[in-house]
Each structure stands twice: as C-alpha cells, then as structure tokens.
C-alpha cells in the first residue's frame, strides 16, 4: 500500500511543480506534464517499469476526453459551422495526411506505416492552441474561429481513425507479439467475449451493442440521472457519471471495440440532455487528472538512448512536419479567403502535432501498426513540435501582427458587434419571463436550475434548460461563463445568490451581473457585493398594481401613469442616500435607527410630492403641461402691440 502512495505522490508532486511553471513560461499545461514525466522518468529515474502499467490506466483519461468532446458536439452548432468544418478541417486533415504519407513512402516505409504516420501528424494540439487563444484573446478573430473549426474536425476525425488503425496491422508485428505471448497481457483481450465468434455473429454483436448504447443512452440515462439528481447528493451524481463512462468502456472492451469510440458515442447521445453541463463539470476533474497522467507517462517513456542517437533526425522531422502543416494551412487560408494577419495566425497556430498524436501512437503500437522503435522517434517528434509552438505564437505576436496592425487600424471597425451569450441561473417564475423575452429577441441563453423537476417542466414547454447548481464554479465553466457577456441570477435562495455574485464578480469581472433581489435589504447587500444591476422582485409589479388601482378609483389613466413615474423618480433619487445609510449601519453591525428614520423621511417626501404643488407653482407630477398663469399675456402685450404672437 505504502508503495502505491509513494508512486502516486511522485506523479502528483511532479505535476504540481512542473505544470504551473510551464504555464507561467507560456508553454501550456500539456508541455508541463510532458516535462514532469521526463524529469521523474529518464532524468531522475524515480519511476520506471511500472510506467507502462500506469499508462493503460491513464489512457482512461483519453476515453473521458472523448466523452467530453462528444458532449460538446451540439448538432446545431455543427450544422452552423458545416462549411468551415468540412471544407477547412477536412482538407487540412486529408492534405496533410497525403503529403506526410508521400514523404514517408519516399523513405521506403511500408504504406500502412506511412498512412498511420500521416494520420498522426495531421492532428494538432487542441489543448495548447485553445488555451493560448484564450489567454491571448484571439478566440473571436477570423483566424481563431477558423482554427477552432479545424481543431473540432480533427477531434471528430480521431474517431474514424481509431476505427481504421486496427485494419492497418502488420502481420509480422502481430506474429512477433504472439510469439512473445504479450498480446493477451497487453490490452486485456483475455476478457474478450467475442474472440471466438464467426465473422457474421461478431458483426451482429457489434451492431447490437452500439444500438443498445444509443437507445439506452437516450431513453434510460435520463430517468437514471433524474432519479440520482433528485436525491440531491452530489457524490452520487459523480458516482453515476463515472459508472456510465466506465460501464461503456467495459462494454466496448468486452466486444473488442475501442472504449474511446463508445464514450464518444455516449457523449453525443447525451449532448442534448438537460444533464449535459452537470455531467461535463463532474467528469472534468477526473478527465484533467487522468489526461495529465497520460502525458506524464508519455514523458516518462521518453528513451534518452533513442534521443541521443537520433536527435538530428528528430529535430529535422519536427521542423519538416511543422513546415508541411503550416504550408498546407496557409494554402487553405488563401482558398478560404482568410486575410492578413489572420492567415498567419491560422497557419502558425496549428502547425504542431498534438496530444491526439500520442493517443494514436500508443494505439498504433498496441495494434501492431507501427513498430516500437519508430513509434519512439515519432513520439519525440510530436513532443518537440509542441515545444516549438509557443515560439511560433511569439513570432506571430512580435513580428507578424505589428506589420498588419498598421494597415488594419485604418479600416472602419465592424458595425455589428458580437452580442454574446447570457447565462440565466434559476428558471422559476422570474427567470422564465426573462428567458422568454431574451430568446424571443434572438439572444442565446444558457439556462441552469438545480431542481430536476423544474428543468423537466421547462423542457416540456420547449425551454432548453440544464440541471445543475449554479454556485458550482465547474458548472459555470461548462455553461460558458468565460464567453458570456451577461449573467442573470434569479435563484430564490438569498444565500446562494450571494455566493454566485461574490464568485462571479471576483473571477469574471467582465460578466455583467443582473440580479433579482428579494427586498430592499437584499438589494443593498447585493449591491455592496458588486452586482451591476438589481431589480427588487415585487417592486415594478406592485407599482403597476398601484397605478391600476388609481385608475379604477377614477384618476385619468395618464395622470395615474404620471403619479407612478413620480413615485419611481423619488425612489430613484433617494436610492443612493438610503444605500449609504444602510451601508454605514450594516458596517457598524447594528440595524441603526438612522436607516429607519431616513425611510420614514422618504415616505413623508413621497406624500408631499404627490399632493402639493412645488413652490414655483408647478406640481411635480405634471410639470411642463401646466398652463402658464392666467395673466401671462400681459407681458407680451406690453412688449408688442399685436396679441397674436403667443406660444
């Protein structure tokens, strides 16, 4: 037991030390994990033989990553970006694969190996690129968006690649593996239920399993999660999520399919469910850690012997790969009319090979497609190209961008500005109206509520909402708080509203916070916490009711409207003073008489203003429509003999 703890400690401390440092140096977290692995593996030698075993475990992180990729694939979003996705992404992957494969063939490699290498190098690093875009605020540029569609296409393309790779297996490698008796031990084939079935039966089993996955995922998962969520126990929800992903991985393993493939499918099936954001936020930490572990094992597996012998080859290959990828991207950028600095951003940002390259590499080795010795060199090439990526971004920032900036600054800025999404927390009576109004005006909203029954009810009347606790930072993250422009908080729990306001204001100052308050005191409190706009829930409806009451009593409706406005104006004019008094009294930690006195003063003021004319003879309520005094024409008649000139 102590042995395991020691090992786990070594891995964890390596990650804890290396990853933040790498991020600070602008290298990104993936490189941080790789470096951590290199240090504890080949450099210090703290970990060794067990790395391969752990790697199998760590590969589960990849399964989870694909589950999340599946979850994030909303059919509508895909449809909206279909042209860029298929055009740019499809051409990038296929052209790069063909060029790399051609070069590999020229070096006398077998075509199956050449194809596998082409596929591996066609992928870029989603983790590094998206992270960097986020940090540098390049998401919304044309280059950033185009890069995103290519990355998304690559993420999806991994699925058919995983299906294709086993077909490329080399007979002689399989033979060798079987001779060594490793095949069974290496990827759990001992538990394969279908190994001895004839071809047609195997095909039938596969079809049935996938059908079961899709249908079960669609119809059974919802009642299950609803049941779990209504218990209100967070850890059981976590357990259910893990159960789902692990179960799918096991099922796929039993019938000899890729667990990653199954998890991806399950993710897609659940992408439209109300539990999507909660599932994602639950799985996120596990995915992150296991994926990190996966990169550490890749780093730990780096063979310095190989590097010493082959380093010129590794560097040459990495540079060649990046040159090929950047050229392909640059040509595509010209074809798809991506202009100026965006063209360079697009070409440079995606020039590296990525983490999926590692995944495919280990998968190809397992499936006897690429021999171990070549795979080791390729793995170094992938890592080295990732190391070079930050320097390409620096090149873009310092050399390329300044050259274009001058020209671009002369253009008129676009009139249409990005409206941004709105997150609505709480879809009760209040939130519903806000949401309906925004959606009717074409604003994209993400609706969250922590009551399953409420979410279900909303879904029945076609309001797309998600289950989840908006006070959980992870959930806000998956709901897209980083991208959001506004957040509307209409939760009917004072404490939790307070928590959300504090958290969001502190971590995402760019998000405008609009909050529904219970009463005056709550509103003041929210204001002191930094909420941008506060509506006290009953104020306007009550005022409306008061206005109607006046009309019923015989006031002219327009007069009643003016009286309502005057009331509201006095409230607004005195808001600041009341707030300051409240603030002072709450800081003294006593409910002071000052505040009550002030409130009474306000009431007094209201009564007077409503009834009494102002000292200058005009009442506050209909100021400006008051006719001039009866004798006002005397002045004009003194000035001018003609009485016709009057206003």
């Amino acid at each position, binding site marked *: 037991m102590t042995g395991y703890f020691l090992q786990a400690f070594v891995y964890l401390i390596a990650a804890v030390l290396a990853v933040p440092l790498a991020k600070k140096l602008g290298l990104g977290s993936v490189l941080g994990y790789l470096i951590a692995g290199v240090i504890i593996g080949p450099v210090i030698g703290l970990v060794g033989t067990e790395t391969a075993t752990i790697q199998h475990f760590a590969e589960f992180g990849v399964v989870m990553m694909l589950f999340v990729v599946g979850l994030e694939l909303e059919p509508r979003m895909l449809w909206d970006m279909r042209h860029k996705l298929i055009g740019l992404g499809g051409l990038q992957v296929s052209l790069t694969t063909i060029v790399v494969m051609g070069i590999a063939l020229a070096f006398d490699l077998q075509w199956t190996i050449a194809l596998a290498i082409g596929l591996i190098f066609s992928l870029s690093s989603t983790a590094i690129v998206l992270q960097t875009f986020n940090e540098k605020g390049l998401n919304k540029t044309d280059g950033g968006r185009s890069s995103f569609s290519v990355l998304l296409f690559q993420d999806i393309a991994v699925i058919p690649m995983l299906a294709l790779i086993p077909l490329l297996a080399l007979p002689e490698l399989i033979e060798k593996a079987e001779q060594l008796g490793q095949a069974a031990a290496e990827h759990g084939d001992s538990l394969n239920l279908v190994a001895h079935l004839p071809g047609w039966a195997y095909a039938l089993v596969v079809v049935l399993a996938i059908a079961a996955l899709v249908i079960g995922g669609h119809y059974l998962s919802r009642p299950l999660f609803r049941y779990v969520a209504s218990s209100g126990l967070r850890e059981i929800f976590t357990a259910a999520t893990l159960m789902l992903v692990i179960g799918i991985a096991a099922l796929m393993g039993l019938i000899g399919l890729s667990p990653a493939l199954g998890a991806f499918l399950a993710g897609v099936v659940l992408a439209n469910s109300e539990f999507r954001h909660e599932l994602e936020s639950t799985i996120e930490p596990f995915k992150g850690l296991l994926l990190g572990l996966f990169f550490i094992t890749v780093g730990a597996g780096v063979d310095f012997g190989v590097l010493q012998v082959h380093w010129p080859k590794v560097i040459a290959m990495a540079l060649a790969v990046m040159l090929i990828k950047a050229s392909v991207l640059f040509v595509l950028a010209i074809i798809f009319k991506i202009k100026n600095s965006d063209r360079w951003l697009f070409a440079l940002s995606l020039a590296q090979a990525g983490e999926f390259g590692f995944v495919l590499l280990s998968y190809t080795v397992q499936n006897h497609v690429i021999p171990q010795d070549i795979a080791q060199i390729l793995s170094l090439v992938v890592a080295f190209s990732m190391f070079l990526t930050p320097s390409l971004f620096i090149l873009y920032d310092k050399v390329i961008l300044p050259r274009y900036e001058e020209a671009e600054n002369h253009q008129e800025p676009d009139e249409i500005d990005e409206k941004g999404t709105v997150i609505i927390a709480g879809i009760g009576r209040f939130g519903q109206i806000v949401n309906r109004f925004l959606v009717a005006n074409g604003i994209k909203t993400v609706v969250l509520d922590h009551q399953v029954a409420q979410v279900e009810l909303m879904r029945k009347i076609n309001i797309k909402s998600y289950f989840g606790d908006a006070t959980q930072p992870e959930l806000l993250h998956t709901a897209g708080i980083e991208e959001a422009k506004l957040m509307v908080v209409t939760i009917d729990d004072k404490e939790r509203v307070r928590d959300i306001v504090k958290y969001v204001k502190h971590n995402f100052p760019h998000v405008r916070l609009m909050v529904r308050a219970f009463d005056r005191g709550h509103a003041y409190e929210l204001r002191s916490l930094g909420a941008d706009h506060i509506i006290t829930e009953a104020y306007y409806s009550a005022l409306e009711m008061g206005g109607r009451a006046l009309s019923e009593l015989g006031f002219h409706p327009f007069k009643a409207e003016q009286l309502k*406005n005057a009331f509201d*104006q006095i409230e607004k004019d005195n808001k600041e003073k009341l707030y300051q008094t409240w603030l002072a009294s709450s800081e003294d930690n006593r409910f002071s008489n000052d505040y009550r006195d002030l409130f009474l003063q306000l009431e007094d003021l209201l009564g007077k203003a409503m009834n009494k004319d102002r000292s*200058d003879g*005009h009442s506050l309520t209909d*100021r*400006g*429509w*008051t006719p*001039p*005094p009866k004798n*006002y024409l005397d*002045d004009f008649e003194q000035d001018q003999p003609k009485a016709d*000139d009057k*206003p």
Partner: protein
Amino acid sequence: MPQQNQKVLVLFAHPSQDRSEINRPMFKLASNIEGVTAVDLYREYPTFRINVDKEQQRLLEHDIVIMQFPLYWYSTPAILKEWQDLVLEYGFAYGHDGKMLHGKSLLCAITAGGAENAYCDKGYNHFTIRELLHPLEQTASLIGMRYLAPFALFASRTAAEEQRVGVHLNNWKKLLVNLVENKVDLELASRLDKLTQLPNNLFKEAL
C-alpha cells in the same frame, strides 16, 4: 470680435436608429467633435420621462442648440415635441422672468424624404422647408433665441445609393467645427432659406 469658442449642444431624436442610414453617422460624427455635446434623446429617455432640470441645465451650459432629426410629418419626432413641452417652461424659457435662453442660437439639422424641388409652392409639399418649420422658428423667437436656417438633406431615402452621404457628412462636420470655433456668420445663417449648400461667405476667416 474675439474668437471665443462656442459650446454646441446636439439634441438628436431618431426613434428607429437600427434603420438609420444618415442620421446615425451624423450623430456619431458629432459625438467625436470637441466642443460638441451630443445627446441621443431616445437613448436617454426611452420611456419619455424627460428630466426637466437636467435638460434645462444643459441648455444653460451651451451657446448653440442643434435639433437633429428626420422630418416626421413636417415636424419633429415625438420626443422632441415632448422635450419642448416639458423643458421650455414658463418662467425659464418664456414669461415674465423667463429669459434664460436669450441670446443663444437654434439650428435644425434635418433629413427630409422629399426631393429638394418638392419643397416649394409649386411642388407637392407646397411650402419651403423653412416655412414648414415655422413653429420652431416662432418658438425660438418667443424664447429669445436666434433661429438659423435649417441644415437639410433632401431625398434622404436614396442618398446612400446615390453616394450623397459622404458629402453631407463633410458639410455637417465643417458646419459643426466652424460653429464651435465661432467662425459662422450667424447673421447671414439666419437670413438664408436653408443651409443645404454651405456658401463660402457663411464662414468668417479667423482674425
């Protein structure tokens, strides 16, 4: 005469700005000129609850008031009429002690749908643009302000297609800058029929 800079207030009234082709660029341009205070009345008072004290204070702080609007039924959009009804109070703008606006100038900057030749007694609008705006001219007279001839763009619905917006914007800018620098011959401006083409003698050379 000393060249003291004038403070210019633009009161802009346009109720459907998402469809505006000329007024919105004009307003944007005005907002960027130093010495010009540009107020979008519909933005500031979306529910027509005009803050009378604030608007009166604004008038006191400026020398030249420009009402910028598209001509609606030969008059201003509703909020500008509301603005007049509320802000030009007895005792402030007119009446026994109402002399607060005396000596200031008032200019209308308008866009009109009809072609220029429609605004004459032979055209289908029967009156010149200055005649149609007589209520505003008389208001100015009663509150002691100098009324300047309207700065107008005609046939505004087709101006964008006919590439006339650029010229109009340039004239608008020239007018505003010269008003701020006190280089406009206000006497002449009040006598003209309209300020569509800005005649050269409208602008005084700096001393």
